[in-house]
């Protein structure tokens, strides 16, 4: 019982163990996952903690591991998963791991650097190669120019040179002022294609056309793309100019545009030689690059086998150092003191784990457990299995229970129909089972009723000679109502299980069902709330707050019972007695008149003496309100006055040597909450409870509303979708029926199961959280978060 109703009993335990065995012990405790370490150094900042260096080292290692992982992912190397538990590394292994990691990182970085350099070189060589090939054409042109120009002529020669590959504008220009053999110098290079137009413009502005510029785009092959990691369009250009001075200027312009310049030999023979050497160098580079990549993937593959293992080891180390930071290191450096919260039931396993740990580390001294009493609030721990986990998660979403108060995670939540999607599968299962039961009670299955036990109503007695009807009454009237007063119409014993099937075919079905369902909702609601109130009593008993029982629980109980308990009684009483329908009083009117003290002689009562009983109930309820409001603050006030007087008298009697501060500080410590706060809190609580009673009771009427809506939806689906399909008499009727049934099925699942199921779950949850839990649940605890390596690895994945 206690395991579900309350959170586990926790105890505060002091642990003493040796420094050498610290790692293994904490490792064992982490594997156990049942122990929460308390921070013994709360004033110390993170940077001043003892093991901050080690934690930093672990973080550094994690960074390296992440870098390795990224590299592996980039090179598409699979990282092996490890499933066995690894032993925790002791501090020596940490150093080893650290050095391994650093070496790996350095190696990898170096490889990457080399690879990049090689790549750059290859790209350059490729550029030179393309340059050499393309400028062949230009040089041929230039030579024809030279041969042409040897014909002495001082006229300007139109040079409309249009090579099929160039895209410059066709315009003539002159090379004036030159006589004799032309001495053209040139500059060749490679520039990005997008920069080329601007480049050309700048050159024109500077040199006014005293140059010949040729350019052609480099063909982008696949290899080039792979080398460059993406398509970058480049152009080869060559500029023919005269004069050194101009060449310098052009060089500067090229630098400004980030064009790479290459020296191109002048003669054909030299160019051919250069081309060949470039080719061989490229081949060499390609081989070297391939080798580098193979080596790199080899290194990464070897690391990938251990990556996961290292990762979890480092995580564990970090957790252990972090935990060690929370403990107290003894001055003599030999002993570590830790304080842990752990469930009382698990003390034995904790001891066993510690003994294991110290044995592993080879120390002879076993760790000492010392349970200490404390006034501090322990964390809240609810032991769950897969069945109760779903429910507990829902409760914790509202508020983690205060230590050891009643846990409202009861396995049954729903009072209305249909399945649900949130939470665990067991919630869905239980809701489903209860929905089936509800359907049996309401006698409503796809809006049709079962007639298993036979109806309690019969029609024949309504006819002559026993009843008022004739055959012609049937012909004249479309609707006739059965009268229970006529003997035999109602058999005297109600339908054994659930609602009578005759109501399904009655046209005034809703009159009966609404009344029934509303009253049922109110009865269920009041029962639920009384249950909640009783749980608060159990809490008070458990925490030994017996005064609260009289100050809080009893007035609340009496208030609730005298008003709403009486309402329930009225409903049940009216159901149990037989009345004539004309003189039957309405419960609602009775209740209203009771509250207003409105008693007229023409108002019929249900039972003799009702007036007196009702007046008594209302007066009692009204009397409970000031009791709830005032008694507790008054008592608190009186207690404080008494304790203050005692302190004064003690102070007068004591010798002057006694420290005056201590005796004054005592009552001040207990007076953490002032009188004003107590009064306000109690006032709020009273108003909340009393008004809440009424509104919460009405809130339960949502059970009726949802039930009605669901029944109506079900009926609509039958009457508008399936029934017309069944009535079809045409030749294609069977096909139509198949289609209509498909529509019926889809709508049923989507609307009645999914939507209504969610709605039912939501409303049930709201009733549970608000109306039920505000009678007793505080929910101000903090959750038990043990050191557990299982949860660490889970978060890693």
């Amino acid at each position: 019982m206690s395991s579900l109703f309350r959170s586990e009993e926790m105890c505060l335990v002091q642990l003493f163990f040796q420094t050498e065995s610290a790692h293994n012990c904490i490792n064992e405790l982490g594997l156990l996952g049942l122990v929460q370490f308390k921070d013994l150094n709360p004033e110390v900042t993170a940077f001043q903690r003892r093991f901050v260096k080690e934690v930093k080292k672990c973080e550094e290692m994690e960074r390296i591991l992440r870098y390795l992982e990224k590299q592996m992912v980039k090179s598409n190397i699979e990282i092996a998963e490890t499933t066995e538990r690894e032993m925790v590394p002791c501090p020596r292994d940490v150093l080893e791991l650290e050095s391994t990691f650093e070496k790996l990182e350095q190696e990898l970085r170096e490889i990457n650097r080399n690879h990049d350099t090689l790549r750059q070189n290859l790209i350059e060589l490729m550029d030179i190669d393309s340059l050499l090939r393309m400028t062949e054409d230009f040089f041929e042109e230039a030579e024809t120019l030279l041969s042409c120009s040897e014909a002495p002529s001082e006229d300007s020669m139109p040079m409309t040179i249009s090579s099929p590959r160039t895209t410059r504008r066709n315009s003539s220009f002159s090379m004036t002022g030159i006589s004799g053999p032309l001495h053209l110098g040139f500059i060749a290079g490679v520039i990005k294609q997008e920069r080329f137009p601007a480049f050309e413009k700048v050159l024109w502005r500077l040199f006014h056309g005293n140059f010949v510029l040729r350019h052609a785009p480099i063909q982008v092959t696949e290899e080039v793309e792979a080398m460059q990691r993406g398509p970058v369009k480049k152009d080869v250009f060559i500029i023919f100019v005269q004069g050194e001075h101009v060449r310098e200027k052009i060089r500067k312009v090229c630098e400004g545009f980030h064009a790479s310049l290459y020296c191109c030999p002048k003669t054909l023979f030299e160019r051919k030689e250069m081309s060949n050497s470039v080719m061989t160098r490229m081949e060499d580079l390609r081989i070297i690059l391939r080798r580098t990549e193979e080596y790199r993937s080899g290194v990464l593959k070897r690391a990938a086998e251990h990556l996961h293992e290292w990762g979890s080891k480092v995580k564990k180390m970090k957790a252990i150092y972090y935990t060690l930071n929370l403990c107290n290191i003894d001055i003599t450096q030999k002993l570590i003191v830790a304080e842990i919260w752990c469930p009382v039931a698990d003390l034995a396993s904790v001891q066993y784990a510690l003994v294991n740990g110290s044995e592993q580390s080879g120390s002879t001294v076993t760790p000492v457990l010392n349970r200490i009493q404390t006034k501090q609030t322990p964390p809240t721990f609810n032991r769950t299995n897969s069945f109760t986990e779903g429910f507990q998660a829902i409760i914790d979403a509202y508020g983690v229970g205060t230590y050891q108060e009643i846990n409202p995670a009861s396995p049954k939540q729903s009072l209305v129909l249909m399945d649900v999607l949130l939470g665990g599968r067991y919630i869905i299962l239980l809701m489903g089972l209860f929905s089936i039961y509800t359907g049996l009670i309401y006698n409503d299955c796809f809006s049709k009723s079962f007639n298993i036990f036979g109806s309690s109503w019969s029609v024949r007695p309504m006819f002559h000679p026993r009843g008022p009807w004739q055959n012609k009454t049937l012909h004249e009237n479309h609707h006739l109502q059965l009268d229970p007063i006529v003997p035999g119409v109602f058999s005297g014993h109600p339908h054994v299980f659930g609602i009578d099937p005759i109501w399904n075919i009655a046209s005034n079905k809703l009159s009966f069902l609404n009344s029934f369902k509303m009253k049922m909702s109110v009865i269920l609601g009041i029962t639920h709330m009384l249950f909640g109130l009783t749980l608060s009593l159990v809490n008070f008993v458990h925490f030994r707050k017996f005064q609260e029982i009289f100050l809080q629980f009893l007035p609340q109980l009496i208030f609730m019972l005298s008003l709403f308990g009486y309402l329930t009684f009225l409903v049940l009483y009216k159901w149990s007695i037989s009345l004539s329908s004309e003189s039957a009083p309405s419960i609602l009117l009775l209740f209203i008149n009771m509250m207003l003290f409105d008693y007229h002689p023409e108002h019929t009562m249900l039972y003799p003496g009702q007036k007196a009983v009702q007046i008594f109930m209302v007066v009692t309820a009204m009397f409970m309100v000031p009791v709830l409001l005032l008694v507790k603050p008054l008592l608190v006030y009186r207690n404080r006055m008494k304790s203050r007087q005692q302190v004064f008298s003690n102070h007068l009697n004591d010798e002057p040597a006694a420290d005056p501060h201590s005796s004054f500080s005592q009552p001040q410590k207990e007076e953490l909450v002032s009188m004003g706060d107590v009064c306000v809190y109690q006032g709020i609580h009273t108003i909340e409870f009393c008004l809440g009673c009424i509104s919460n009771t009405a809130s339960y009427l949502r059970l009726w509303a949802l039930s009605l809506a669901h029944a109506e939806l079900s009926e609509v689906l039958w009457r508008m979708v399936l029934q017309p399909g069944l009535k079809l008499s045409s030749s294609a009727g069977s096909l139509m029926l198949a289609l209509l049934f498909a529509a019926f099925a889809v709508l049923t699942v989507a609307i009645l199961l999914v939507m209504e199921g969610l709605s039912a779950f939501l409303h049930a949850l709201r009733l549970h959280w608000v109306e039920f839990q505000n009678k007793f649940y505080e929910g101000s605890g903090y959750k038990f978060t043990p050191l557990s390596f299982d949860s660490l690895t889970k978060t890693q994945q």
Partner: protein
Amino acid sequence: MVSHSLALPMICFTTLWGLVGIVAPFFVPKGPNRGVIITSLVLTAVCCYLFWLVAILAQANPLFGPQLKNETIWYLRYYWE
């Protein structure tokens, strides 16, 4: 089954849910789930019994009867017992 009055079903169902809710908890085997099972049994018994009780009490002394179409009455007159 001929039920003479309200008493017979009342006794039957009260006994049934009483068995489920009050007697069965004593026979739950000891184990870590004992509390959950007992709570489930008691809650099931209380909820189901209350639901059934309200349903049967609401029909025990009806103040008005069902209003039927004349065709339905005609059918029921001859085909229902």
